[in-house]
C-alpha cells in the first residue's frame, strides 16, 4: 500500500485528535446526551477495528469473508468463559488466552476455506461462521441462546497496582481509541513489510505471485489468521464494554454489517473501512431515531452504495486529495 497523500494524513490526524478531545468537550456540546454518545462512540471505534481487520482480508488479500463475525464473537465469548463469576479476571491472562484461541480457530477455518476461492470462499466462510453461531447457540457452554454476562470487568494491574479501571466509561473510551489507532498503525506496518507486499500482490494477481515462486496459500492463511485475531480483539473489547455476549455477535448478519462498513468506507484503504464504521453506525442511529422499521432504509442505503459508490468514501477522499497534492507538486 502506497503512502497516503499528506493532506489526507493531516485530515485523518485531526479527526483522531478531535475524537481524543471529545470526552473533554462533549459535555458542553451535548449536555443531555453526552454519556450516551461517548458509549456509542466507544462501540463504533471497536467496530472500526473489526472493519479494518476485515479489510486486510477483503480489500488487501482479495478474500471476501462472510464469516468474520465468528471471530469477533469468539473473542467476546472467551472473555465471558474465562472470567470468574463474581470477581475480576486478570487482563494479562485472559486477553492473551482469548487471542490465542481465536488465532487457532481462524487458522483452522482459514486452512479449510483458503483451498477454495471466489464465490466458493464466500459460501464456505459464511457456513463456517454460522457453525460458530450454532455452536454457542445450541450448546450449554455459555448460556446458549440467552448469552452470558461478564459481571466484573477484568482488572488491569501490574504488581498489584491498578493501571486502568475498565469500569469507567471514559477510560474505556480511550481504550477503544487506543485500539483504533494502534491496530491501524500495526496493519500499516504489516502491509509495508515484505509479507504485506506479497499479500497485497496476491489480491491483485495471485497467479503472478505464484509464478514468482511464492506460495500464496501460506500467505493467505497467515493474513486470514491475523485478520481473525484482530477481529477477536475487537470482540473482546466489545464484551468488556457491554458486559454481555450472545450468539448474535457471531451471526452472519453481523459479518454482513462489517462487510458493508468495508465497502462503504472504501476497501483496501484501511482508513476507509474505519470511516465506514462511523458512517454506518451513525446512519443506523439516524434511521433508528426516525422509524422502528430502520432496516428498510438501511437495506436501501446498502443497495445505493453498491450501485453508485463502488469505491466507497475512502476511494472518494483518496481521489480528491491525490489530485490536489499533484497540483501542489507533492507526492
Amino acid at each position, binding site marked *: 500500500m502506497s503512502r497516503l497523500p499528506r493532506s489526507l494524513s493531516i485530515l485523518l490526524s485531526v479527526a483522531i485528535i478531535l475524537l481524543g478531545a471529545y470526552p473533554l468537550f462533549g459535555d458542553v456540546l451535548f449536555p443531555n446526551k453526552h454519556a450516551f454518545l461517548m458509549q456509542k462512540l466507544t462501540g463504533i471505534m471497536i467496530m472500526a477495528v473489526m472493519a479494518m481487520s476485515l479489510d486486510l482480508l477483503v480489500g488487501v488479500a482479495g478474500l471476501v469473508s462472510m464469516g468474520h463475525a465468528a471471530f469477533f464473537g469468539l473473542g467476546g465469548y472467551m472473555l465471558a468463559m474465562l472470567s470468574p463469576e463474581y470477581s475480576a479476571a486478570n487482563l494479562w491472562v485472559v486477553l492473551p488466552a482469548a487471542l490465542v484461541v481465536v488465532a487457532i480457530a481462524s487458522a483452522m477455518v482459514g486452512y479449510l476455506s483458503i483451498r477454495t476461492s471466489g464465490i466458493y470462499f464466500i459460501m464456505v466462510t459464511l457456513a463456517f461462521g454460522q*457453525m460458530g453461531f450454532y455452536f454457542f447457540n*445450541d450448546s450449554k457452554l455459555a448460556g446458549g441462546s440467552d448469552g452470558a454476562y461478564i459481571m466484573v470487568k477484568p482488572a488491569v494491574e501490574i504488581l498489584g497496582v491498578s493501571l486502568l479501571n475498565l469500569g469507567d466509561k471514559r477510560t474505556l473510551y480511550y481504550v477503544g481509541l487506543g485500539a483504533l489507532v494502534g491496530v491501524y498503525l500495526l496493519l500499516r506496518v504489516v502491509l509495508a513489510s515484505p509479507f504485506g507486499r506479497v499479500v497485497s500482490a496476491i489480491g491483485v494477481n495471485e497467479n503472478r505471485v505464484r509464478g514468482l515462486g511464492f506460495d500464496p496459500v501460506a500467505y493467505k492463511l497467515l493474513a486470514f489468521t491475523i485478520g481473525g485475531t484482530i477481529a477477536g480483539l475487537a470482540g473482546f473489547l466489545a464484551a468488556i464494554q457491554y458486559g454481555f455476549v450472545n450468539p448474535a455477535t457471531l451471526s452472519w448478519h453481523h459479518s454482513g454489517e462489517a462487510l458493508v462498513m468495508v465497502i462503504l468506507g472504501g476497501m483496501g484503504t484501511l482508513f476507509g473501512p474505519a470511516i465506514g464504521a462511523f458512517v454506518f453506525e451513525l446512519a443506523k442511529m439516524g434511521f433508528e431515531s426516525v422509524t422502528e422499521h430502520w432496516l428498510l432504509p438501511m437495506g436501501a442505503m446498502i443497495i445505493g452504495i453498491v450501485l453508485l459508490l463502488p469505491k466507497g468514501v475512502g476511494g472518494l477522499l483518496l481521489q480528491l486529495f491525490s489530485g490536489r497534492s499533484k497540483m501542489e507538486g507533492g507526492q
Partner: protein
Amino acid sequence: MDIWFFLIQVLNGLQYGLLLFLVASGLTLIFGIMGIINLAHGSFYMLGAYLTFWLLQSVDSLLLAIVLALPISAAVGYLIEALLVRVLYRRDHLDQVLLTYGLILIFNEAQRMLWGGDVHGIKVPAALDWSIPLTDTLSYPVYRMAISAVCAALAVGMYLVIQRTRFGMWIRAGASNRDMVAALGINVNLLFGAVFALGAVLAALSGAIAAPISSIGPGMGDTVLIICFVVVVIGGVGSIKGAFLGALLIGLADTFGKVLAPDFASFSVYAVMAAVLLVKPRGLFA
C-alpha cells in the same frame, strides 16, 4: 434403534433433503447460469410461505393458495432481476453479496411490516391429513410423503427441461457463453430474467409446501439460505446433480444428528461440510 424407527428417520431425512434440493437447485441454477450469488434466495422461500398463509385467509384450499402464490413470487423475482440484479452481471461477487444482503434486510423488514413478528402455522389439508400405520405405535404422515413425491417429480422435470428442451438448451448455452447466445439472436436479458424468476418460484414453492409441517416466522428465510449454501458447497457450485446429492446428504445428516446428538444437531451439518471440503475443496461435482 428399532428398524421401523430407523426407517422413519430415513424417510424424514430424505423428505427434508428433497425439499432442500428444491430450494438449493434455484440457488445453484442462478449461480451456474448467471454467475450471480444470490443471498436473497432464502427470502423467496419466506415469501412463498407467507403468501400462502395470507392467501389461505381468502381461499380454503391449500393447493389453490399455492397456485396463486407462485405467479406473484415469479413476478417479484423477475422485477428484482430486471431492476437490480441485471446491473451486477459485470460486477464482482463482492458487489453481488452486498446488494443481495441489502435486499434481505428490505425483505425481512417488509415481512415484519406486512405480517408482524408472530409465528404462524398452516393446517395440513384434510385429504392428506392421515398417516400410514407401520407398527402398533409408529406411523408415517402422508403429507410428508406427498412433499417428497412433489419434490422428486420436480427434480425429474427440471432435469428433462434442462437437458431435453430448447429452453434448456438456451440456458446451458447462456451459461457457457452469454455473448455468443446474444449474437445468435436470443434475448439474453429475457432468458436470464426467466431463470431468476424460475429460481424464485422453486424457492417460494418449497416454502409453501413446507409450511404445514414447519412454522412460518421471521428469519425463516435466513436459516434455509445458510443450509442451502452448505448443500451447494458440498455438491459443487453450479451443479444440479451435486445439489441433489448434497441435499440428500444434508437432509439425512441433519435428521440423524437431531436423533443421535440433539445438543449438537445444527452442528452435524457443518461437520459434514468440513469433511467434504477436506477431501474435495471444490465440492463433489464441481
